[in-house]
């Protein structure tokens, strides 16, 4: 991310970058059919265009507040990187704010902010997303500035050096001073031996220090092109007005070169992998990861429901068994990175100080064995479907949430309209489907187990 520092004491698990894709909030909708407003009908005012240069534009008018959310989804993430240039996609997320040949460094932020807008960006293993939130009066300015940095980025060497330090600071914050993130980075790198999902999105430290200007320029000219972008605008705008402005500002930008597909397929894992990390700290951590499926896999709704059943709330199965009843962990969570290619599904646990990772693993294995033998109950599945339905409605209650959902479906699932058929897909999932996907994913030979053992810090402080 470009800005934003998590200060929540309770957000102990999950890593912003090494855990890969941003949390996907989309868990559409079983109960939608019973509500007064039809979910499928909410997107009827959406219009799309594709420019001659390949830029996809999606506009969802929403006049509730006089504001607009613009998300530019660039189809590049750390999975498109290679040895020696890890972290480049994320570094670009920073460089895109550092000046163009027509606007000096700092002008992008100065102009956006002084016209009432704010901005941010995030990078995942699959995509890089640029976000602006602004009053409708700034629409043309924002489109001008966004198109300018897509076409005319500057590469001043001294700016690159400064930003290298900023990114390193971000790495220290998110990874090196955070035990869960440090462990997650190691698990990711161990679970994958071939596919570039092994790369941490923020980059390995030596690469952050060593990128060259030529690396940056190559990356930019390859990936920052209109045919690699999906531009989503939601808010107080009219589609025709947006299309005309997008044509004016993006139309002249030439299509970029054809890009290399990620060819590498992760070979099937044929036995458990284990790793131990020793770090200063107080609480042991455990992360167990299994090779799972890709975002567009038809089993995805079932896997998302399974995730909700296992760790989605205080009534969820693993929370009840491992935190409340057995008290083997302080917190248990799980997550799945929905990517273009099959990524891992992880269960994360923070253990109490002095807690036994062996005891936790045994109990987790017993819970999973029970799941694989007996499946999930009708009550569990119903609860998960209701949770998914409500979180979907919460997702479309803001222009920001709409821009995120539209982009996710357009880019990660291939068509924004799938957002509006997703409720049916979730509604159709049966307990048998959930059991089947659990059996597909939770195979011991596809598992990587990471344990973080805390070392007591040697205090040097005394009172003065």
């Amino acid at each position, binding site marked *: 991310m470009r800005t934003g520092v998590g200060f929540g004491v*309770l957000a102990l698990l999950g890593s912003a970058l090494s855990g890969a894709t941003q949390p996907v909030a989309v868990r559409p909708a079983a109960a939608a059919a019973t509500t007064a407003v039809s979910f499928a009908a909410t997107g009827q005012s959406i219009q799309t265009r594709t420019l001659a240069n390949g830029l996809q534009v999606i506009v969802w008018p929403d006049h509730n507040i006089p*504001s607009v959310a613009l998300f530019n989804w660039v189809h590049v993430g750390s999975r498109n990187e290679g040895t020696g240039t890890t972290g480049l996609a994320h570094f670009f997320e920073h460089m895109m704010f550092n000046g163009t040949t027509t606007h000096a460094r700092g002008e992008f932020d100065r102009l956006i902010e002084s016209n009432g807008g704010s901005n941010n960006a995030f990078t995942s293993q699959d995509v890089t997303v640029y976000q602006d939130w602004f*009053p409708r009066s700034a629409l043309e300015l924002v489109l001008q500035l966004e198109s300018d940095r897509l076409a005319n980025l500057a590469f001043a060497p001294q700016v690159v050096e400064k930003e290298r330090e900023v990114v390193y600071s971000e790495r220290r914050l998110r990874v090196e001073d955070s035990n869960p993130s440090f462990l997650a980075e190691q698990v990711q790198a161990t679970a994958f031996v071939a596919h570039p999902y092994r790369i941490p999105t923020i980059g390995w430290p030596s690469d952050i220090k060593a990128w060259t200007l030529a690396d940056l320029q190559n990356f930019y*000219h390859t990936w920052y092109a209109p045919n690699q972008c999906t531009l989503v605008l939601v808010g107080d705008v009219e589609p025709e007005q947006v299309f005309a402005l997008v044509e004016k500002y993006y139309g002249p930008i*030439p299509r970029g070169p054809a890009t290399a597909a990620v060819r590498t397929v992760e070979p099937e894992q044929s036995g458990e992998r284990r790793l131990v990390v020793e770090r200063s700290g107080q609480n042991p951590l455990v992360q167990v990861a299994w090779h799972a499926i890709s975002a567009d896999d038809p089993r995805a709704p079932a896997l998302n429901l399974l995730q909700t059943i296992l760790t989605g709330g205080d009534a969820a199965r693993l929370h009840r068994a491992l935190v409340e009843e057995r008290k083997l962990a*302080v917190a248990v969570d799980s997550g799945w990175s929905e990517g273009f290619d099959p990524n891992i599904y992880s269960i994360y646990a923070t253990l109490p100080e002095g807690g036994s990772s062996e005891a936790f693993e045994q109990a987790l294995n017993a819970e999973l064995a029970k799941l694989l033998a007996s499946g999930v109950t009708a*009550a569990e599945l119903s609860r998960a479907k209701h949770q998914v339905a409500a979180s979907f409605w919460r997702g479309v*209650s803001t222009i920001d949430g709409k821009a995120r959902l539209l982009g996710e479906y357009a880019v990660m699932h291939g068509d924004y309209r799938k957002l509006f058929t997703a409720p049916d897909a979730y509604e159709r999932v049966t307990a048998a489907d959930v059991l089947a996907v659990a059996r597909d994913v939770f195979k011991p030979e596809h598992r990587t187990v990471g344990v973080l053992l805390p070392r007591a810090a040697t205090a*040097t402080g005394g*009172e003065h």
Partner: protein
Amino acid sequence: MLAATILAGGVGGSGGAGTAVPAHATVTPAAPAANHVNVKVPANERITLPNGLRLILVPRHDIPLVAFNLLLRGGALLDPPGHDGTAALAADLLTHGAGSRDAFAFADAVEGAGGNLDAAARAEFIQVQGQFLAHDSRLMLELLADAVLRPRFDADEFDKLRERRIEEIKAARDSQPQALLGNYGRALLFAGHPYADAVSGSEASLARLTRADVTRFYAAQSGADRAILVVAGDFDPAQVRRDVGALFGAWPRASTPLAPLPAPARVHGRRLLLVDSPGSAQTYIWMANVGVSRHYDLRPALAVANLALGGSFGSLLNRELRQKAGLTYDASSRFTRGLVAGEFAISTFTQTDKSAQALQLALTTLAGFKHDGLDAAAIDSARNYLLGQYPLAFETPFDWAVALGDLDFYDLPESYIGQFGSALVATDAASIRQVIDGAFPSPDDLDIVLIGDAAKIRASLEKFGPITTMPLSAPEFVPH
């Protein structure tokens, strides 16, 4: 859709940046029309029940969700001395077993409906918030009434939650030390005042708490006359009025009146608290003094001035520490404004060997801001930013449930939100100067907390003021 024909070939990877795309003259957006600067506060109905409960209803039917926000005056301010975390544990337990449901049954009822319902203590109130699908509004209110009127405070749940909260603070020391800065800082800055209390408690104070402490606390501090309930979203107001009357009408008033909160005094001079985290890759820095309250009469000017100093990406602090110096990923400032003056704080972080340099640059930036003030362009920019961003905070029924609850709690008029835009437009340079002089501390009068590797940074910090050192692993937020 247009046909996707190829207009031009790819751009070569040769050295130069940029393509042959013509530059447009930068667009200057028109200033927003006067009627567009203000956020419209939605129609709402306010009722006070015979037992003193204040009910605010904000119906809106575009999305089939209903949200609520309940504030119970008191909060962590009322934690008995040495028992930080009492209100936090009490609040936690409200949703871990209530009425006829044990903890699992309660969670199952909430999650089974796809709802959420969370309780937490803040400094000045206990807050219970949630959101449900519209057709579950009756269930939502029943669960809320159980939580606040009939919490079970089961012994087993108490033991588990207390232990878990202790472990979570330990885990934050391993993974999010910056999240703990405010706990150390407020303990120092507000020593002797209730704001010094760590809302979550510390490992040591939580370990001292008994179930009886928490039960007694809630029995004494809960009462309908201390509560504000806002319901917003897709519901039938007549039905919700009836439901609230039936479900909350028997809630007794609190047994005692709330004592007034004294105003904290500003600190003079500088003190440093160095929290030692051996091996830490960077140093987390927080510096503060007492600021202003929620009733500060120059709030629009305050918002402009703080935005310019440290409230956005393009603010002075971030420009100096991040963009120009490359010392950090983030530098910011904020006011916490409560019933009385909370803190004004600057926070940032940097790599260990740059700690003194970053601290110095933050102090220099604050000094420059105090001395030079803001020029007309900076004022305009900050004002426009605030005008443009303000509506985004009032988008959903849940946002309004929170906002109207806050207004009622702090006894502020609707114009606090509804006329904020016009007030920003009317803010002049003189009032901003007045705010910079009056509300922002001098860089010479600050309590400064640093979490970092003391052995490596202590010597470089001595020039900033007297240093007290304590280990990050200590189970509390104040030195012995």
